[in-house]
């Protein structure tokens, strides 16, 4: 169980290697990488070109929120290891924003836990995004889709 909130980019291959090293119980590693897109498409009609986005977070609180989400994943699934790395600051299209990894003896646990981690992270960790678009700064609104995705994991 590791959580990091940082400005710097991360090394996906290195993180995945490290997570399984020395634990031959692990048979399945599922990972998710979120990238900055060059386009914001809302509801299928509203499109904004995105020059960059800036992620703000709540230092001190974010780490605890992510650790709580990770602990919940370990309660729900049989996991040998997990990792959340989330960047903040200014990011351009193509840059990595977030890495979520779940490792388990079997793939069902790894897949479910990985998806749970990113779904809950989006609605339960204090990050906010503002997009730099040709028509100025635009704060990203929360998506109903994300709430629905998070809700599907409610007991």
């Amino acid at each position, binding site marked *: 169980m590791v959580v990091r909130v940082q400005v710097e980019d991360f090394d996906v291959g290195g993180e995945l290697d490290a997570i399984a090293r020395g634990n031959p119980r692990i048979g399945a590693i599922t990972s998710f990488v*979120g990238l900055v*897109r060059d386009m914001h498409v809302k509801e299928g009609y509203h499109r904004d070109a995105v020059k960059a986005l800036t992620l703000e977070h709540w230092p001190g609180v974010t780490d605890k929120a992510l650790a709580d989400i990770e602990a919940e994943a370990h309660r729900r699934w049989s996991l040998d290891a997990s990792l959340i790395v989330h960047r903040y600051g200014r990011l351009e299209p193509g840059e990595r924003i977030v890495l979520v990894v779940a490792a388990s003896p079997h793939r069902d646990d790894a897949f479910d836990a990985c998806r749970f981690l990113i779904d809950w992270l*989006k609605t339960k960790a204090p990050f906010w995004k503002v997009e730099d678009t040709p028509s100025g700064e635009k704060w990203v609104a929360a998506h109903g889709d994300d709430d629905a995705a998070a809700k599907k994991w409610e007991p």
Partner: protein
Amino acid sequence: MKVRYFAWIRQKVGVAEEEVSPPADVRTIQDLLDWLARTSPRHAEAFSEAKVFGAALDQAIMPLDTPIGAAREVAFFPPFTGGL
């Protein structure tokens, strides 16, 4: 009592945090929000948005009808939008 603002709420209010001394009849987070909205036109505009705010007492997220009690810090923020 310290009040903190995040994201576009911070931008509209114009400061990231401020010390306030609300009157005794400000009991809940919602009371504080209503009272803050009357302290300046910027506050009024920031809090006029028809969005659902989140709030936290001493860094623990709470519903708006929660009594502030002895909390030393109240935070207001828009819904979270992390991830990809």
